[in-house]
């Protein structure tokens, strides 16, 4: 069998695997779209491959990559059992991300295809983007959302996907251009990160926290810990931009998930790398962003004393009450305000509404439901014959969950439950997941709507 014959053979294998995979229940949603897109890609690939001269090595190399990529995709779908990830959250996330991931190449363009699978390891949170320039064969782009398998029920932590949505938007050329100019432009216009030389000077500054100096000494043989180069700076700014994306799309839940997960993997909060700036700088930027968004004023205006106190606890836990330290405070309030307002305008222009904090009459019932062990959602629990269920933004449910998770009562247990029941954070997450499920049903079948 020569290389060309083998590649054609592998195309048939991929097609056969595709049929096998989609016979089973591999997650709700876009199976048909995925199947159609995939068959079309295979048809296209075979039509290009069949006339190729078997001695044209370069063409065969290209086609080998393409067939391999299709095979990898089918395998990923094979692994996406719907029991392994929180599909009510996924549906909301898909709704949020879809307008941003549309390419608008043609007037009657289909939506991007969004698939999901679970992966092992805390590091798994990701949206795979099909952003590679050297791909021959993409009709509708497939975005694959990857959840960590062990955090299946932890919907509060899944707010971290707000950051990943930013990376997805970055791959759409029009958004990329807007984000570079209107969001990154202001962030890069002033401060210690405006150039690689300034950034390097900042990193080596004697005023830097002791932890930074310790890390520099520990890794002095590795250039990325002593010099900031162009690629590194570019990645860092993309991370800053995506953090703002997370904040604007998911609100307070993002701040909480961001701190919880990033500090879990870097408890010092000071570590940096070729693709990410120190957490303390990211937190400083988010602190200023929340000031601009008026979160403190929002909390002060809450009338219910208990809720106001809970919200204050939440903000102090995840943002801190003091202004950031001088070294890590790399952007001014003005820079952040300009960037944030531009980002909100970009989101609005594509039909992806930025998160707006809930009014008290929405948040308080959600928090009370959670405190009573009831899944938080817009269900009317008054017992009337015709319940007046309400539409509630799924992100308010996550916010309510985080507020309750920080209440001291949520951390206590009487010692009689089993290990899972004692884990109050898990229980709150599960309640919120159920809340999302019920809310999804309310959204799909609002009162009075006939089938």
């Amino acid at each position: 069998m020569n290389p060309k014959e083998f590649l054609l053979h592998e195309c048939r294998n991929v097609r056969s695997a595709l049929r096998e995979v989609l016979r089973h229940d591999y997650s709700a949603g876009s199976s048909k779209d995925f199947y159609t897109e995939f068959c079309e890609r295979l048809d296209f690939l075979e039509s290009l491959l069949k006339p190729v001269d078997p001695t044209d090595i370069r063409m065969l190399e290209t086609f080998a990559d393409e067939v391999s990529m299709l095979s990898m995709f089918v395998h990923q779908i094979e692994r996406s059992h719907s029991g392994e990830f929180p599909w009510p959250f996924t549906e909301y996330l898909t709704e949020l991300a879809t307008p941003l991931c549309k390419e608008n190449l043609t007037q009657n363009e289909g939506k991007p295809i969004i698939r999901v699978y679970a992966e092992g390891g805390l590091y798994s949170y990701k949206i795979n983007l099909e952003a590679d320039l050297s791909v021959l064969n993409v009709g509708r782009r497939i975005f694959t959302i990857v959840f960590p398998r062990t955090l299946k029920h932890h919907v509060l932590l899944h707010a971290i996907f707000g950051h990943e949505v930013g990376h997805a938007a970055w791959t759409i050329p029009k958004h990329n251009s807007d984000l570079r100019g209107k969001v990154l432009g202001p962030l890069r216009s002033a401060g210690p990160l405006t150039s690689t030389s300034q950034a390097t000077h900042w990193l080596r500054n004697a005023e830097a926290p002791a932890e930074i100096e310790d890390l520099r000494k520990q890794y002095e043989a590795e250039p990325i810990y002593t010099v900031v180069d162009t690629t590194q700076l570019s990645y860092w700014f993309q991370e800053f931009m995506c953090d703002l994306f997370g904040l604007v799309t998911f609100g307070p839940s993002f701040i909480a998930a961001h701190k919880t997960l990033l500090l879990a993997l870097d408890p010092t909060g000071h570590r940096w790398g070729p693709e990410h700036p120190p957490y303390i700088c990211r937190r400083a930027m988010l602190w200023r962003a929340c000031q601009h968004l008026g979160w403190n004023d929002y909390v002060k205006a809450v009338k219910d004393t208990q809720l106001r106190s809970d919200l204050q606890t939440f903000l102090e836990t995840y943002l801190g009450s003091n202004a950031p330290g001088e070294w890590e405070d790399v952007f001014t309030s003005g820079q952040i305000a300009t960037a944030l307002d531009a980002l909100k305008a970009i989101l609005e222009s594509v039909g992806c509404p930025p998160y707006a904090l809930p009014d008290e009459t929405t948040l308080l019932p959600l928090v009370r439901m959670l405190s009573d062990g009831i899944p938080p959602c817009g269900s009317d629990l008054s017992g009337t014959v015709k319940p007046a269920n309400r539409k509630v933004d799924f992100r308010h449910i996550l916010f309510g969950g985080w507020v309750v998770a920080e209440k001291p009562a949520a951390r206590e247990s009487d010692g009689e439950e089993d290990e899972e029941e004692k884990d109050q954070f898990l229980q709150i997450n599960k309640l919120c997941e159920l809340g999302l499920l019920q809310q999804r049903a309310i959204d799909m079948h609002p009162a009075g709507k006939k089938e």
Partner: protein
Amino acid sequence: MTLLSMYKRDDSRNVYRILADQAVKYIDHPTGGSEARILFTNLSRLLERYRYDAFFSHGAPGILEVFSKEHRAQHADRAEPTPKTLDVIPALEKAHETVYKTLSKDDLVQRLQELLVTLAENQAPGESHPNNEIKNARLFFVTLAETLDERRT
């Protein structure tokens, strides 16, 4: 690194040469169908990157992935975007300069994308696009393919 992954390479130069060649064939003999749709969507996507100067070779890692030891090791080994990726940009610029000297990037992309949509829908482009426009589009893709072919090593 697995035995096969060591062969993975940036192939954008070859990919867009193939697509540009195919575009010329479809302009000469429009057939529509899903194959044409995929072909012209890919080319539209390339033009969109050209319009907004949005060329990047790979996606960013996940927000937490950067903390994994495995990822850090992979990053250390990872090559920077290769000249092959960057070859696509001057090839597009040459095709632009050769065929549509006076048109801005925006106008060029819009004009070509409209034609590609017509071709993908299997409409005879002659009905909605003047002959010289079709000839120019054809020349654009011929120049693109030839320039990318010259840069093959």
